[in-house]
């Protein structure tokens, strides 16, 4: 079995994101970037399945500018066997990402495609679903537990009502939730060795995929600043304020 895992380079989750002065986007110059957190869970799960002997190869793929390669290298350092970098500059929307992934799936013939449930930069939560649609494969989204069976997967999903367990036939797309596992840290010798693992470089245009934006972004704004709170002296004052000022009770 072969598992393809898609990883994305995003602004690090610890960074306080700042909007550009002209409102055209967020500041990314000199900002610390890292792998989209649920993508780390996707890689971890694929590597665990390989370690259990149920998969033979884990291939990590990223789509983005030259620096996106760092994200693939990180996946290689924790156990992926080889990497693919599809070079695209600028923002790539989920539809274009899924079209690129479809081309790679046709080329690589994986049995499973894993990725994070959504990226923390655009919060789209669309790529896995779109890829399933255009490949006409089954999908299991928000996976918090994956059990590999003979020709299918048993996947526990995190849904609003609680947990849902479904079975999907292989080949399938799985998008991973943060509860799926605890991603391991790469040791320094493995980080060094990852530099020597094969990394194939492709251009989106070579794959015949049009990455032009379909969505027009009008403006990016900071969320409204929270006002400072006040201290109330007593419960009765609190109740009075909730009733008369906040008008919530």
């Amino acid at each position, binding site marked *: 079995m072969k598992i393809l895992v898609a990883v994305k380079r995003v602004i690090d989750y610890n*960074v306080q994101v*700042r909007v550009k002065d002209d409102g055209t986007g967020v500041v990314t110059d000199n900002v*610390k970037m890292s792998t989209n957190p649920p993508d780390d869970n996707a890689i971890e799960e694929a590597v665990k399945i390989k370690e259990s002997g149920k998969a033979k190869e884990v291939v990590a793929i990223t789509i983005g500018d030259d620096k996106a390669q760092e994200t693939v290298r990180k996946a290689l350092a924790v156990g992926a066997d080889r990497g693919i970098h599809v070079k695209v500059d600028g923002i790539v929307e989920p539809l274009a990402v899924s079209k690129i992934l479809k081309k790679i799936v046709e080329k690589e013939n994986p049995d499973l495609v894993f990725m994070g449930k959504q990226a923390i930069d655009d919060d789209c939560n669309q790529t896995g679903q779109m890829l399933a649609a255009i490949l006409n494969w089954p999908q299991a989204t928000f996976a918090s537990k994956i059990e590999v069976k003979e020709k299918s997967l048993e996947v526990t999903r995190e849904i609003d009502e609680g947990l849902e367990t479904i079975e999907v036939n292989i080949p399938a797309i799985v998008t991973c939730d943060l509860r799926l596992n605890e991603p391991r*840290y790469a*040791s*320094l010798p493995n980080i060094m060795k990852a530099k020597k693992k094969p990394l194939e470089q492709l251009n989106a245009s070579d794959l015949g995929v049009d990455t032009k934006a379909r969505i027009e972004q009008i403006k990016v704004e900071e969320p409204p600043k929270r006002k400072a709170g006040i201290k109330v002296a007593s419960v009765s004052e609190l109740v009075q304020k909730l009733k008369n000022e906040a008008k919530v009770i």
Partner: protein
Amino acid sequence: MKSKSKVVVVGGGVVGVSALYHLAKKGWSDVVLVERKELTSGSTWHAAGLLPLFNMSYSVGQLHKYAVNLYGKLEEETGKNVGFSRVSNIRLANNKDRMDEYFQYAGVAQTIGVDVKFLTPDQVKEIWPLCNTSDLVGAIQHPEDGYIQPADLTQALATGARNRGAEIYRNTTVVGIKQTKNGWVVETDKGSIECEHVISCSGNFARQTGKMVGLDIPVIPVEHQYIVTEPHPEIQKRKKEGLPEMGVLRDSDSRWYMREEAGGLILGPYEDGAPACYVNGPSKESEYELFQEDLDRLAPHIEGAIHRVPAFGEVGVKKVYNGAICYTPDGNPIVGPAWGLKNFWINEGHSFGITAAGGAGWQLAEWIIDGEPTIDMLGVEPRRYGDYCSKSYLIKKNEEAYSHVFINHFPDEERPAARPLRTAPCYDRMKNLGAVFGQKFGWERPNFFATDGMEQKDDWSFRRSKWFSAIEKECKNVRENVGLLDMTAFAKCRIKGLGAEAFLDKLVANKLPKKNWKN
């Protein structure tokens, strides 16, 4: 917010808060500190918290010694735990030159009054069982030092200052500093404060603060990274058995520090190629900022660390911190009165800010309140720099100072970056005569002339170098014949006014010559 105060401290990192604390401690309670964001949010919060007593400079060594002593007593005074782990610190030597450096340093330490012990490789192994000691020549140990939690230290100093009446204004940005007849006005986005003294402790913003009063403060930060690993079973086992922490380990020849952290290890290398950052200052929104890590440039040091402590390579990397540390061209901070501006004080360029903050604040308080410092502060004197420190010079020199943190500190060392900067008209002629140059205040001056087929190149050592015979000849010649010096490195001081003659007579060994006396 007060509209009047004796002193305004600009900047709420550990350096500024310590200055405020010491002013208040010395009895000036009417003092305030202004911080644009939160305390520690510049470089203090991401510092590794090490308290290295080791320093080749007498002034800096004194500041560090005072700080380590003070930090040990802060909890008792303020009730706030500062996370001081007095775990000792071992510096390793892989060769004879490095041992020479330690022998020379031991002399400095003895003068300052800092305890240093010499260790054999076997003694190192006893303290640090995870350390490979097979290729070591020896080591020194500072039993008194260790590390501290920088944010907790800052909060404790802030509490100590507030308890004595000092006030701290957070989220208050200084927008202008104006000199008045009697002192200064510090303008902020929340109002102005009239004061007698201003202390600039603005760290990464040093040049921006300097610009407000027309000072070109030669500080540009450099990126520094340290790696934090996940817990290692061996270290966790030691903890369970109740064994002491192994202490801070420094492999000077592989250029890194290492210490335990939550059952794992921290590694901080001082590599070549670390870039200057915030060259034009951080953005106005900057706070708690880290940069992208770059492990590639640390590769040789990581390999050295795994050779020295194999356990370090056996566990995963939890986090890599890459943040700004302030630097000056010689790597020492700038502490003292600003040149040409009365009652404006500079406390900037701290590359060992956590360790130096205590001493720098202490001496500035002495200087401001009593009129003079109580230790020799020549090593951190602001006037050692001048207008030769252009931005491009600073970038090169500060990056060099960073990469030289662990380079052997030979007494006759002349660092090569950004040279030649200023040359005399006869520079080429002297070079053709065999001059080997050094740099003073940006100027190239011959240190000696290579003679008798000697290579025209520096030869640094803790022992007698090849220049000895060349300089011997120069001295003899000047004594017996005539020598020509194109530029002296000595400063000229004009002393005038009532009592000048009596003052000078007391100062110099010889009797002063008569007025208008001609040779």
